[in-house]
């Protein structure tokens, strides 16, 4: 320590304080669903881990973001969306921000589907009708707001906007139109937008290709790779599903190879981006991700195959060949993240399932009932605590340390 210059100590402290093992957005710090947190333990042979707090945030599928000891998520009550900022230690409300939004329960309970994105002292949110907000992360004060339908002329897809915001440098990217929209993150002004057709439900993902970023965005009919500077699509891969639902984020296997997957009987494909147009390496009906994307861990994919109403199975897939290595029917339409080589799955029926991520077998070492009702939202892990919600909005914080 003695030899480290003072300014660097301050710098390191700031970084540590801000990022430590936070989970500041959909799919976590590295957008891969994998937490860097190692301060938790997977095995609970003698007693269940303690429930730290429990609250209700209203109906929805919105995920949980954690930054600077604050918890952010969205829910709907009485046709009103509320963005919640809670104290991570107590679950007590620090601030809320509400706006009118139809519950819109079309074939499910309804409510918001996107996850708040924390970027420094700002939190960005989007509602299903295209209500975009930049909020002060400390106070909830509105920096600016805009509406993708009214202000950018981009139509809401059938189930509304469900992708989460992505911040890159000074821009905010959202999945809207054929291949996304870019806003100035300080003003909400539209920098570029794609054609006014129905978006998919995945979140924009920044793929690093030879040092240059390409945004991966789904529409209701395709996946595209877009230049974040201009919005120009470098490539578009047609991907039709029965109800125009491309919800799972594409998962890069490497910088030139993408795994894409949809539910409704569609299945998955591995596509290569090396040629002039994307090429399909293989296609399979055995891994159709209706909602949550697969996790890529040590070269293997883990995720839910099948629709929520069609006996979904949790599976492991080898991306080189598309072969299924194992399959388990105990999780339902679950959401999952990973940390320390473990899958942390929130089962559809509210069971927290922890299992080593292994291509050999699915052998959970922990199963704890943390929620009642039905959950489709992936849990979040931050600083030794896991956060789980169900669709009707019960949110629990469980200490895994």
């Amino acid at each position, binding site marked *: 320590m003695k030899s480290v210059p003072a300014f660097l100590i301050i710098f390191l402290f700031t970084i540590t304080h801000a990022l430590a093992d936070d989970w500041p957005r959909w799919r976590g710090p590295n957008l891969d669903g994998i937490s860097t947190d190692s301060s938790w333990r997977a095995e609970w042979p003698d007693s269940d881990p303690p429930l730290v707090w429990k609250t209700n945030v209203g109906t929805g599928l919105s995920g949980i973001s954690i930054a600077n000891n604050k918890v952010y998520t969205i829910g709907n009550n009485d046709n009103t969306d509320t963005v919640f900022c809670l104290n991570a230690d107590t679950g007590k409300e620090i601030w809320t921000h509400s706006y009118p939004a139809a519950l819109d329960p*079309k074939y499910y309970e309804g409510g918001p589907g996107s996850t708040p994105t924390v970027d420094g002292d700002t939190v960005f949110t989007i509602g299903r009708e295209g209500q975009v907000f930049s909020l002060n992360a400390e106070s909830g004060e509105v920096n600016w707001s805009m509406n993708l339908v009214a202000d950018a002329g981009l139509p809401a897809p059938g189930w509304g906007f469900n992708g989460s915001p992505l911040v890159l440098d000074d821009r905010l990217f959202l999945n809207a139109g054929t291949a996304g929209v870019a806003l100035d993150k300080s003003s909400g002004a539209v920098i570029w937008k794609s054609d006014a057709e129905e978006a998919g439900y995945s979140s924009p993902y920044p793929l690093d290709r030879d040092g240059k970023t390409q945004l991966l965005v789904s529409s209701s*009919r395709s996946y595209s790779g877009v230049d974040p500077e201009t919005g120009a699509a470098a490539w578009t891969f047609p991907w039709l599903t*029965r*109800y125009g639902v491309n919800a799972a984020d594409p998962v890069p296997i490497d910088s030139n190879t993408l795994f894409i997957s949809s539910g409704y009987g*569609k299945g998955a494909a591995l596509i290569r981006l090396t040629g002039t147009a994307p090429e399909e390496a293989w296609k399979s009906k055995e891994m159709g991700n209706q909602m949550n994307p697969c996790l890529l861990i040590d070269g293997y994919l883990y995720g839910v195959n099948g629709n929520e109403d069609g006996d979904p199975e949790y599976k492991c897939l080898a991306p080189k060949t598309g072969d299924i290595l194992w399959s388990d029917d105990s999780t339902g339409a679950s959401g999952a993240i990973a940390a320390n080589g473990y899958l942390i799955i929130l089962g559809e029926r509210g069971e927290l399932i922890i299992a080593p991520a292994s291509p050999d077998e699915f052998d959970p070492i922990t199963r704890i009932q943390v929620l009642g009702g039905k959950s489709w939202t992936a849990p979040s892990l931050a600083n030794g605590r896991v956060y789980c919600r169900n669709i009707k909005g019960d949110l629990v914080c469980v200490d895994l340390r």
Partner: protein
Amino acid sequence: MNRRRFIKSTSAATAGLGLSTAPFILAQKAPFQYRVALIGSGWWGMNILRVALETGRCKAVALCDVDADALEISAEEVNDLAGTKPNTYPDFRELFANEEIDIAIIATPDHWHALPAIEAINAGAHVFLEKPTGHTIRESRSILNAARAADRKVQVGLHRRIGPHHVSGMDFLRSGKVGDIGMVRSFVFNGGGEELPSPNSEPPNSLDWEFYCGPAPLRPFNRKIHPGGFRNFLDFANGTLGDWGIHWLDQVLWWTDEKYPKSVYSTGGRPVKGPAILNDKEQTSDAPDSQVAVFEFESFTATWEHRRFAQNPTEKHKVGTYFYGSNGIFHMGWRDGWTFYPADQKKQIIHEDPNFDDEKAGHNIPGLWTDFFDAIENDRLPVADIEPAHLSTNLSLLGMLSLKHGKSVAWDGSSESIIGDDAANALLQRTYRGPWEYPVI
């Protein structure tokens, strides 16, 4: 134009020739397959086609849909299943003009049943028609008359006519063990609440919305309607009575020797969902959230009841038909099979479980297909023939007619007209939006 193929003789000739003249060639020839077209390649239409392909006796040669994306995804699915990609058409008239079709599946929304079905029959095809047979009574009658005139078979998707527990339950009912049956009650109850309007939007680029509306009034596009929501919009379908009601009212007509009721009265509305909204900004559905219909027959009274709120926690059976007899109550159900509750409570309850081909979806479509092939090949009527299906559809449609008309109607089943009520008779058909012409056959 009539492109009918001589199916029976073709298959017989293939078998005969194969043995006597050129076995080395014909042995490699694929067995006879029906050339099938699907009109309306959405979720349910694809379920019917998938089962047809699984029998191994059908080749999907052409698909038609006004949603280009539904068409493409369905063609891809057929390719995945059968290894050949069917031809795709946005317009059924073009399909029948270009393709030689043995069997056409009609799985469009109800308002688009009659014209494609009649076009198919006139092109020489047999028809697998989704229920209800028509959107209005005279459309349904026209399909029946067209089929009879052209000697084409029409199997209607009333799979409860062939489901094993329905067949054995009917035997039980007819055995006399239930006694004299004087009252019948069919019902389905679900949960639900107030319906909020959804904003209208531009139709998706892939959808020909004008063609979708077709003979029905053109209205603003709304996500509530397509895909999959048309059943609750009365321009395109007939609500729960036209969707679920026909299955259970068909059980009533299957049981009784009577062919039609003497009078029909229905009441209902949207007390919980709220008033129907349709304006240039937004819309709700407009089908009733609750409805009661009373069908007066010579020897018994049948009722229909549905509710799309409050669920059904007080009743053991959630859906189906009760037959009330002097010896007890017989319940024909769905996943709960059938059950007879003797009036004499010292006697044993008798029950049979269902046996579905598709356990998850709870239906017996494969049986409808094998029966259909047999009916075509042996020139007999299929088990869910268009005539009884038409009569069952009439029960649903007369219930809706009475509800819209606001009074009871006296039904002359022999002439299919309403006695002494011109305004009610006018509702047996509808005015088609041009250029489509209401079929009168």
